[in-house]
């Protein structure tokens, strides 16, 4: 009888072990199966060609735990024609927890265009930066499409031990190829909370690097509502937030860009 009980116990344990997603060690665990999602999508984007002279892509930000709104945004984006790719400007989670990353990805993978996801300040909470790196790849990266270079920059300060972003990397990336026009994608704008007050010198350094290089457009999230600031050298835009049921479609043509707000 005892042997039967032990066998049943082992059988039950084997069943549960097989259902590994029922096993949770900690809310702060970094148990993620998807890896290098950005890296794979960058290859697809870099190899794709623009059908006419205009490059079009969608951009949204701050999905947090607005899963219903995010699903609606995905449906709306999928109805758009002629996009090359889609960008999320960060804050895909509320608390940087693995389950939140999984839920974001489960919805984002339904987008029919390749998606690039930047890291946001909320995604740094807990072990979120480790999870982001596992799931998406490096937090600083760049890719090209046609005449444009997209530089995705991790500019989180407070949640990254209140330390300076890697401005050396940014300077190097923006100045590396002078033949391409640069679009900077980063969660926090130089004029948002983490770059004012005590961190104003960091904000000034950030602005100087952008102004000194061939950046035509900066795309950010963080503030949850559309804002635009025009500098002599470039335009800085805080894009539509999924929580406010808005995303943007950006068209690039030579040195010009047009931006449409899409409510959904």
């Amino acid at each position, binding site marked *: 009888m005892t042997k039967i009980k032990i066998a049943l116990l082992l059988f039950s344990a084997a069943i*549960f072990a097989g259902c590994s997603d029922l096993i*949770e*060690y900690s809310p*702060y665990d970094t148990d993620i199966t998807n890896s290098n999602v950005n890296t794979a999508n960058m290859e697809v984007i870099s190899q794709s060609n623009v059908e006419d002279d205009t490059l079009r892509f969608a951009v949204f930000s701050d999905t947090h*735990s607005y899963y219903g709104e995010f699903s609606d945004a995905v449906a709306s984006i999928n109805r758009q024609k002629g996009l090359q790719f889609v960008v999320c400007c960060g804050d895909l989670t509320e608390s940087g927890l693995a*389950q*939140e990353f999984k839920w974001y990805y489960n919805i984002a993978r339904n987008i029919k265009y390749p998606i690039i996801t930047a890291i946001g300040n909320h995604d740094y909470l807990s072990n979120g930066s480790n999870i982001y790196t596992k799931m998406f790849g490096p937090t600083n990266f760049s890719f090209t499409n046609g005449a444009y270079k997209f530089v995705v920059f991790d500019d989180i300060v407070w949640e990254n031990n209140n330390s300076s972003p890697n401005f050396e990397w940014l300077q190097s990336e923006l100045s590396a190829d002078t033949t391409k026009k640069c679009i900077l994608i980063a969660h926090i704008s130089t004029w948002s909370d983490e770059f004012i007050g005590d961190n104003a010198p960091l904000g000034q350094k950030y602005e100087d690097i952008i102004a000194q290089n061939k950046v035509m457009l900066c795309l950010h999230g963080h503030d949850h509502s559309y804002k635009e600031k025009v500098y002599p050298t470039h335009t800085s835009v805080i894009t539509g937030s999924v929580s406010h049921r808005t995303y943007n479609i950006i068209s690039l043509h030579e040195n010009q860009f047009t931006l449409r707000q899409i409510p959904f």
Partner: protein
Amino acid sequence: MNRTSLLAYLFIALTQSIYGNYRDTIPKHKNPTIVQLQYAGNMGLVSAGIGKSFFNERLSACFIYGYLPKHTNGVTVHTLALKTYYTPIRKSIGKRSSVEGYCGASIIRGIAKNTYVKYPSHYPDDYYQPNAYHIALFTGAKHSKLIKNNKWFDKVAAFIELGTIDYELWDGLKTDYIDFEDIWNVSFGITLNFLSKK
């Protein structure tokens, strides 16, 4: 067995054991001290705790330390928890063993990177809610057996629990885009009752 049917089976089994009309004939000790070892359940890879049972072993509370080593998934997490549970029903099986159904809640304090009770001074006031605490809810079934002639313990039990945690439950309830089964987890463990006078 797929995940949904497994969860349905567990839910029915556990609720039946809790709400079934069972009688308990196993002798009890007054407020026994218990130790427990647990696998998973948002308390670490493994956790160990010590506590007491009260009111004829109807109410129990344990202080628990849990550990998730770095080699498991790349990060180290320490967990401190207070686990409390109510055992409304106990069915005797013969003279020396019983099956119990219980439900309860744990307060979990995680010690990990960027996890705070009070955020550092460079953050504006109330910028984030504290993220070091979570509340877990669970229901469980336990098979207990009295043990004879042991120097330290007089009862041993194996348990299985079906649980959820605050943010998963909240997000799962507020949106249709999270599968109901996504918010549940399963854990296992054993408890031992220290030998005590009847």
